[in-house]
């Protein structure tokens, strides 16, 4: 469920970048205060392990297709939330560079979706409250399934939200939700089961590994719900703030993101912020499923579409297409030219 650059608007992308970088900084600070030096190679190797383990497949029961682990909750259980968040972020960073999963701008969103929810919501609120040092196998199983599923649901929901806020995809909110949440619930159940089994395996093979983590505890405690909520409030305010700033300071170039959400180019002063944006999303979801009736009641939507399209006559559109083709041709010639120059010099 990697988010992609192409589906993001700059406002949404940079906001989540800022949010994720902020949390990395916060985790780094927390870790600096109380890090056990041997954690550093452990974190590094576990990060590489997540990569390597994802190359081993298994057959998903009842479907016959094959899958691999995500591993976020295993990391949290082994390392505590701060270190796990750093590891997940670095794994996603390397994936975005080497595998082109997502992209560099979407990295902020991906770290947020796959790091924040499992490490700072699902782990402290579900896993940690259920599993204590002496917890039995079944308890770990239930806690893992619940926390992994919750983390994935939040992440999937967040992907939908980011896509809708960016306004690049026409996918209706509700349809997107129906497509993302059930599939990620299924993935979450399997992933949760595997997570629990692997944790139990480690528990029986090398119990002291898990114990040392759950004893050296300043790492996993001290996440209060209050702090988490404050973080989310700040994030919400930031999203609203950044978007309205883009809209007011750069009316011609960047206003489409607002335009898409609000349905009109400008926005009245008192309506800035996240609340009206959410309201619009709600309004949209209310009538978009009935989009098939476009012919009969689509007059207003059509107008909206017409407005966001710059008023170009047939002549300019032809020149746009012709120009595009020529530009591409020139660029390719330019590239070929460099190559020829290079081989000649060599």
């Amino acid at each position, binding site marked *: 469920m990697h988010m992609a650059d192409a589906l993001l608007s700059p406002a949404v992308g940079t906001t989540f970048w800022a949010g994720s970088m902020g949390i990395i900084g916060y985790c780094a600070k927390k870790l600096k205060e109380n890090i056990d030096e041997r954690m*550093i190679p*452990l974190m590094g190797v576990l990060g*590489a392990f997540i990569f390597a383990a994802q190359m081993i497949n298994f057959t998903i029961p009842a479907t016959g297709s094959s899958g691999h682990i995500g591993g976020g909750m295993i990391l949290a259980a082994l390392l505590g939330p701060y270190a796990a968040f750093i590891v997940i972020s670095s794994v996603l960073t390397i994936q975005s560079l*080497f595998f082109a999963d997502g992209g560099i701008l979407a990295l902020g969103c991906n770290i947020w979706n796959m790091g924040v929810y499992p490490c700072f919501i699902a782990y402290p609120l579900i896993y940690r409250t259920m599993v204590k040092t002496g917890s039995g196998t079944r308890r770990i199983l239930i806690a893992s399934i619940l926390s992994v599923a919750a983390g994935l649901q939040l992440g999937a929901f967040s992907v939908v939200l980011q896509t809708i806020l960016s306004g690049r995809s026409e*996918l209706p909110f509700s349809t997107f939700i129906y497509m993302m949440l059930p599939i990620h619930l299924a993935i979450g159940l399997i992933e949760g089961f595997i997570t629990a089994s692997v944790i139990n395996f480690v528990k029986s093979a090398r119990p002291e590994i898990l114990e040392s983590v759950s004893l050296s505890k300043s790492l996993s405690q001290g996440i209060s719900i209050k702090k988490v909520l404050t973080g989310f409030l700040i994030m919400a305010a930031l999203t609203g703030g950044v978007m309205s700033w883009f809209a007011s300071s750069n009316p011609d170039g960047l206003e489409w993101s607002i335009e898409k959400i609000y349905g009109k180019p400008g926005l009245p002063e008192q309506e800035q912020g996240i609340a009206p944006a959410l309201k619009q999303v709600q309004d949209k979801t209310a009538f978009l499923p009935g989009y098939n009736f476009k012919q009969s009641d689509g007059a207003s939507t059509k107008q909206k*579409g017409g407005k966001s399209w710059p008023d170009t006559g047939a002549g300019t559109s*032809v020149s746009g297409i012709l120009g595009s083709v020529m530009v591409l041709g020139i660029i390719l010639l330019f590239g070929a030219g460099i190559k020829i120059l290079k081989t000649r010099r060599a």
Partner: protein
Amino acid sequence: MPNFNKEYFNIGYLDALSYKQTFIHKINPGIKLVVTLVFILIVVSFSKYEVHRLMPYFVFPVFLISAGEIPAGVILKKIFVVSPFVLFAGIFNPVLDTTIVYTISGVPVSGGWISYASIIIKFILTISSALLLIATTSFPGICFALDKLRVPKIFVMQLLFIYRYLFVLAEEAMRIVRARNMRAFGKHGRDIKTYINIIGTFLVRSIERSERIYHAICSRGFDGRIRLLRDINLKFTDIIFALISVSVFIILRMYDIAELIGDAVLKF
């Protein structure tokens, strides 16, 4: 497992490309990182109907491919491999947005197709620029640049560690998979129970490896910091590269080059 080997060699191949010695490869990693980020931000900032305005931006990846001597096929293949999510997320644009915006020799083109095309083109541009960054810059170089840009040390160290052990553990995973395949007929051994045992053992082995690494680096004087062998300094060419590319991006953002050329040709 042919897929697995291919995947593995792909990372290795991109990494190997990054050690070439062209003009592009020699540019300061931090500068390349920042220029790539600016490129992506500007590309993404176009509205969903401005397809023709995205075209001139192909100049950046094409320039990097030709000047950096990167085989274009590798980059293209990678782009196709990761495209499904984007293709899916945009597939409803043509269905839901049927406002006619163009008529090309009698064939009406809806806004949805235009915006779908713009998503795909943006996708190609952003993904290729990320891949080209890594193909023209050594990964440790990028990490050192991040360090200079004040990214938290522990995060940078984490990236370096993963990069170093990624190849080691990937080879171990490859051996495990090969061993499983040789002991199993067809689908046997691919069930979830065996899988958990394999992953569990692999995890415990990796943790033990990290303990050995810890002892090894301690005996070499590890004190929790990374040190750089060479200092990466800013050269004159780096600044020129940054100035030229960023101003080209901005000029292309301000002026509709494709349309200007098209107009000129039509008049002619």
